[in-house]
Each structure stands twice: as structure tokens, then as C-alpha cells.
């Protein structure tokens, strides 16, 4: 097990290496002079020369790569071309809203979706099943900004229960954080609830037909125990996979939701950087997202062993 974790972490090194090479070349292989791209149309030759010097563009390319990687390993992702703030700091500021939103969304989705899925599978073919499935179709098909604006209209404007927009760090008190996080969390959860509930239902239906579920009933166990202890744990692996993938998607940014609720998250940072051609920020975002993806995938794979003792690494 420990050996597996170490091997997996080592295996992540070449993956991240490839990403780093790609990110590095992103700027260098774009047609034209990187300095000119960065500086924009109205730059003077002196400005261009200064940018070349700071970026080390006059050095051979492998030296440039080595310096860049060296800085990277010290946590130096460069400086934003627009705001002149270090990229690491910019991402750091924006990471908290995105991370908290992702965690709260996944928690809410799992808490709602897994019981819904189990219930639908257990009551397969009844009206309960059909209501759950109809909700899932709705969750998939209604765009998140529609849900967001409806929620704002009802709970923030009409009922005035919560503020309309914004984000407050959880370190500044749970109340203000919760007030502002609840609507975006609910809005974002819709699609994840639909996804996870469907997956749970399908996986449970398969497991409920298994012989050991019949054995559990033959032992005289109650339905709750049959469903939760015998069926759900066996049905968990595909569900956990979906949850993990959903989580990485959430962390790497949810632009629309962030815009609707005016949350200063990673998604908007990325979009802004792309539109402004702020290359250091784009590079930092790609590195961060791929790193998170590798880490979450490792966690998902490791979690399989908790659910199924036959899986050994």
C-alpha cells in the first residue's frame, strides 16, 4: 500500500514534467516574438528589450527552461503582466473561494444525491423512482445561470434572507461566509446531484440483483441494513469515481457561477487571463489544475481500497 502510494507519486513526476514542458513551450512556440506578444502592439523597442531581459529570452532555450523550472520549484510562477502581482499570490487569493465552493458543493451533492439514488434504486419502477429520475433530467438540462438567477430573485431579492452576491472568507466568521456561499452552492449542486444520483441508482440496481443481497435478505436482515451495509458499499466504486472527477472540475473553476454570484474565484481569473493574454497567469493555472487532477485521482484510487478489499495495490 505504502509502496503503491510512493510509486504513484513518483509516476506523477513525469506527468507533471510533460505538463511543465507544454506550459513552457506554450509561450515560446506561439508564432511571433514572445516579448512582442506580451508587450502588446504599442510597445517601444526599449520596452521589448527589457521584457526579453526579464524573461531571459536572449539565453539558449534549454537554459531558459532550466531557469524557469528552477523558479517553479521555489514556488515562483512569475509576475502577472497586467497587475504586476506575483502569479502565486494571485492564485493563492483566488484559490480559497473556489476551494470552499467546490467542497461545499460536493458535500451537499453527495448528501442529497446518494440517498436519492439509493431510494430510486430500491423503489425502482415506482413513482418515487420516476420523480427522482425526472429531477435528474431537470438538473442536467437547466443551465446553472438560470438556477442561479432564480435563486437570487427568490431568496436574496424577494425574501431578503441572504445577500445577493459576493464572498466572505470562512476565517472571518461562519455566519457571513454561509450566507454568501449557500446560494452558489445550491445552484452548482443541481447538476452534480443529478449526475451522482443517476450513477448511484444505476450502480445500486446492479448490486441489488447480486446473490449476496439475496443472502442478506435470507438471513432475516431488515431492508435498511440490506441496502446500506450490503448493497451501497459494493456500489460505491463507480460513484466515488464520479464524485472525484466532479470535484476536480469544480476546483478548476466554474466561470458562470462565479460571475453570477460575483465570487472572486479561479474560473474568472483564468478567463480574464486568457482574454488579456496574461501568459504567466495562464501557465500557473494550467500547472495548478493538472497538479490537482493528479492528486485527486490518486486519492480516488486509494479510496477504492476502503470500499473493496479485493482491490490491492
Amino acid at each position, binding site marked *: 500500500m505504502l*509502496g503503491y502510494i510512493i510509486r504513484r507519486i513518483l509516476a506523477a513526476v513525469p506527468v507533471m514534467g510533460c505538463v511543465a514542458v507544454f506550459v513552457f513551450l506554450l509561450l515560446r512556440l506561439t508564432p511571433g516574438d514572445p516579448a512582442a506578444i506580451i508587450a502588446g502592439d504599442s510597445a517601444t523597442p526599449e520596452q521589448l528589450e527589457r521584457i526579453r531581459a526579464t524573461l531571459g529570452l536572449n539565453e539558449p532555450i534549454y537554459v531558459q527552461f532550466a531557469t524557469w523550472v528552477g523558479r517553479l520549484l521555489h514556488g515562483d510562477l512569475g509576475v502577472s503582466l497586467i497587475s504586476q502581482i506575483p502569479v502565486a499570490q494571485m492564485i493563492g487569493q483566488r484559490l480559497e473561494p473556489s476551494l470552499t465552493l467546490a467542497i461545499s458543493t460536493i458535500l451537499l451533492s453527495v448528501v442529497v444525491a446518494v440517498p436519492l439514488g439509493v431510494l430510486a434504486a430500491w423503489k425502482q419502477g415506482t413513482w418515487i423512482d420516476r420523480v427522482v429520475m425526472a429531477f435528474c433530467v431537470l438538473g442536467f438540462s437547466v443551465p446553472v445561470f438560470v438556477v442561479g438567477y432564480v435563486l437570487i430573485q427568490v431568496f436574496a431579492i424577494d425574501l431578503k434572507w441572504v445577500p445577493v452576491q459576493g464572498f466572505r472568507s470562512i476565517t472571518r466568521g461562519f455566519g457571513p461566509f454561509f450566507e454568501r456561499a449557500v446560494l452558489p452552492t445550491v445552484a452548482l449542486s443541481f447538476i452534480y446531484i443529478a449526475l451522482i444520483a443517476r450513477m448511484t441508482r444505476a450502480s445500486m440496481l446492479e448490486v441489488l440483483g447480486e446473490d449476496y443481497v439475496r443472502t442478506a*435478505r435470507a438471513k*432475516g*436482515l431488515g431492508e435498511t441494513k440490506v441496502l446500506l451495509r450490503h448493497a451501497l458499499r459494493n456500489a460505491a466504486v463507480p460513484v466515488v469515481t464520479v464524485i472525484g472527477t466532479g470535484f476536480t472540475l469544480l476546483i478548476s473553476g466554474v466561470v458562470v457561477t462565479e460571475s453570477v454570484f460575483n465570487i472572486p474565484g479561479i474560473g474568472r481569473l483564468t478567463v480574464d487571463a486568457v482574454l488579456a493574454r496574461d501568459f504567466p497567469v495562464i501557465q500557473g493555472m494550467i500547472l495548478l489544475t493538472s497538479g490537482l487532477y493528479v492528486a485527486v485521482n490518486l486519492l480516488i484510487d486509494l479510496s477504492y481500497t476502503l470500499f473493496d478489499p479485493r482491490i490491492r495495490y
Partner: protein
Amino acid sequence: MSKTPHRSAILDVRDLVVSLGPGAKAARVIDGVSFTVREAQTLCLVGESGSGKSVTSLAVMGLLPKNILLPTGGRIELVGESLLDSSQRRLRQLRATTMAMIFQEPMTALNPVVPVGRQIDEVLQAHMRLDAGERRRRILDMMEQVHLPDVERIYRSYPHRLSGGQRQRIMIAMALIMGPKLLIADEPTTALDVTTQKQILALVRELQEKHGTAVLFITHDMGVVAEIADRVAVMRHGRLVEEGPIDAILRRPEQEYTRSLLGAVPSLVPRPRRDEGDGAVVLETYDLNKTYQERSLFGGRREVAAAKDVTLSLRRGRTLGIVGESGSGKSTVARCIMRLIDPTSGSIRVAGREISELTRRLLQPHRQRIQIIFQDPYRSLNPRLSVGESIAEGPVNFGTSRAEALAHARELLRLVDLPADAVARYPHQFSGGQRQRIAIARALAMKPDVLVADEAVSALDVSVQAQVLKLLDDIQERLGVALLFITHDLRVAAQICDDIIVMQRGVVVEEGPASLVLAEPKEPYTRQLFEAAPGRHWDFANFRPVEAGAPTPAAS
């Protein structure tokens, strides 16, 4: 053998009707079945697939699939209590405490993600209030009663760490820990090797005598019936054909169906020897080896020999059987010969040509010389291809025109006793036995020299099995094809093989003419296999016990 009749009735089933869905017009899966199981008595419910024996047992347990199968008539009484009128809650109370059940597949019947000790523990937790120490003591005691070794370790083990026999012992321990009055065993030994089957049957007997349990034993195997039954109920198409004490059923069956069922049981007495003939040797292996390497985490290596130094030869028109239990390597040998897997070393000659080292591409022209029929006809035919396409596909690959291949397919279907218009139909429109005939026709379409049959009749009912065996025999007679017959069933081997190889753990332990190997086995392992064959004291087809002394080859 039959017990005195005035023991009290534990399970009484009267005029039971189970239908597909509600309503009087719904099709009846079980139609008016009645029987009684008494204290310390074993009633065997026998029948072929689709006879309704499993549905009957699930109806007793109240475990019929919801909204699909419904009991719509009759009564089921367990120690005087009507089960069909009981609430779900009451049924749950009765399960495990008064009636318990064990199933066919001990692997799938146990939850793979829960240690087996805890799975037994759940029964106690559901039905009694005991502290953890007392529960553990009872579980370990029960595990010892079912003769499990090293109970402390097994208690903590997950099912996949245990052998098939151990898993079934766990199931039995789980079923009997509350001391139920009725044990329902649904084909509990069908998925096990014969030697394990013998032990499990003995265990059920032993525990029954100890606790006076009534046993409803469901099986398709007349051999098992002869070993364990006090009374026998024969079922067919959801109806009860005949019921009576074991002796009466085996000696004087009244119904034609029972007679034909018994008559279809292949005899353990080998068939008369055929002339060896001087046909050319079409298949030979010499020192065939297949080794698998298991790699542990830090590079440590372990070699497992699935087949070791297997040497065999087969002449045109002859049948060679490879007999052994699961894990003996018999299927590995078959797959190596087919080059479905690559042998580690050794030689394979098919029709005089060495094929063990040929690359995939060079091997291709030789593939048609040797063809295989698999065990499960439900999975070995592509459900999306029509029967004709399946049969014609091979010859078309080898350059025959489509029209010609399809015309030949029609002929082949006639050869295997299927209507020629079957070419346009699809596999799901045929029964298991018919599908196996199609599989045989598909193999024959390649005009092979050697036909490999890997457990080809094991999934079939006995009456169908007898027909398919006869068909293989006829085809061999007419076409002179050589047959390599892989089986775990000594009865089947005795009926079809000229020569037999007995394998154990990858090694050939005994070989020779079937009449010698089966009549006077020399090796202890072969004898052990032979002694474990259920019902070996009974000559089913002639309705009498086998006479004392060595079985003589039948004269007819």
C-alpha cells in the same frame, strides 16, 4: 433408508401456484405443487432447468423477485404457521431462526467486501440480544462444527481469500447458527469439485443428524440425490411429476418422465472398447508447459505451473478425455493446444505440423485444422450474428464464397439435427442444447481434424447432455474427426472417451484406456475422484444398485 413417517411435518407445501404477475390469467411458473418435509428428513427436489424447483424454494423463503413472480394460490406452512399470510416483518423474524437457505454459488452468495465472521455475526445481531464476546464465541463454535480450519483467521478473512468449499462451509455455518428447523439447500454443491462436494454432502448429513433439521435439497444431479435423499420429488414444467421414498423412485419410478430422467444419467461404467484403429496421429503434444509468473510488490517472483510436462497423442477417429478438478490445468492444456494462450515450452503438433512456436500470422492457416466448443453456449455465440453468419464466418475467412459457406451451414445444421431454416435465426431463439448443437456445427464448418470440447456438455441438463454426447459420437463416426474432450465429470468421460488422462495441479497423474483407468484406477488421486463421484453405487439406467465387486464393462 427411508425414515419412519410419524415425525412431525416442518414444511408443508399444498397446491402452491406461483404466477408471472398478478391476475388469474398470468402464466403459471409453479402449478399446484404439494410436498411435505419432516423433521430430520431430506426431501430432494429434482428437475431439469426451468422445472421451477428454485422458484419453489424462494417462494418458501419469501424471496421471490418483487412484482415479477407472485404466489397466487395454495398454502405454505412452516411448523404450522402459514407463510403466505405472514407479514414481511414476521417473515424476517422466521428467516435464519426457523428456516434458512444456502445457495449454489458460494462466491457470489457472500458479500465480497465484508469479512466472513461479520457476515455470520449479522445473523446473531439481527435476531438475538447478545454481547459481542458471546456472539464471537458462538460463531467460532459454529465454524468449528462445519470443520473449518484455523477459525480465528478465517473469522477475519474476506470471501475471496477462501476456497470454494470453505465459502460453502461459511454459508452453512451462517444458515445453521440459529438452529433453524428447516434448511433449504439450492444446488449447494453444483459449483464445487466432486471431492469437495462429497465433503459438503457429508457435512449437511452430519449436522442434520445432530440437530434434527429438516432439509429441502434442490438438485439436478441424480447422483447427489442417491447420496443424500430420504424422499424425492420430481418436478417438470412447474408441476410435480412424482414423489416418494428414495428407494421407490430409484427402483420403481412410476412416471415415464422419471424413468427417462434416470435413464439419461450417464453410467460410470466405461463404454465398450473400440478398436484402436490405425488412423494417423492428428494431435500430439510433448512436454507441454505453461507457467504463470506472479510478481509481488517489490520485485519478488513466484512461478505457478498451470500445466507441467504434458505429453499426449490423439489419432483420427478417437476420443481422448482430460479429466480433473478445477485448477488441475485441463483447460490450460486445451487452450495451449488451440494457441488461445501461448505455451511456455514444449511441442504441439497438429496434423503433423509443429504449431507451438508459430507467430499469429503463420498460425492462421492452421487454425482451421483444430476447432473448439466451449462450455457455455449462452456466451460463446455472438448474440448479434444470425446462426448462419456464425457458422459461415470461419470458412469465409479462409476463402470460401459466402453463398457456398451458407449452403454448407444449412447442411451442417441438418447434421446436428436442427432445421436448415435455423440459419436465419438468432442464438436467443434456441435452447441451451440447441445452441450447443450450433456451436458444434460452427466448429465443424472448418472441416477440422481435431475437435476440442472444453466442458462442452457440463452446462446442459442430463437428457440434453445425453443427446449431445450421442451427436458427437455420430459425427465422429461419420467424419472421423478426433475429439479432445475436457471434463470434470467422470460419468461423461466414461461414456465418450477411448483414452483418459487424469490431471491434478497441472500434472498428469494417470493415463490409459478409459476401460482401465475408470475400472481399475491405480493412482490414489484417481481413486479418490472415483470414490467422490456421487451415486456411484447406483446403476440409474437399470433402476438397481451396482453389484458388489468391480464394475464390469457393459456387454451391450
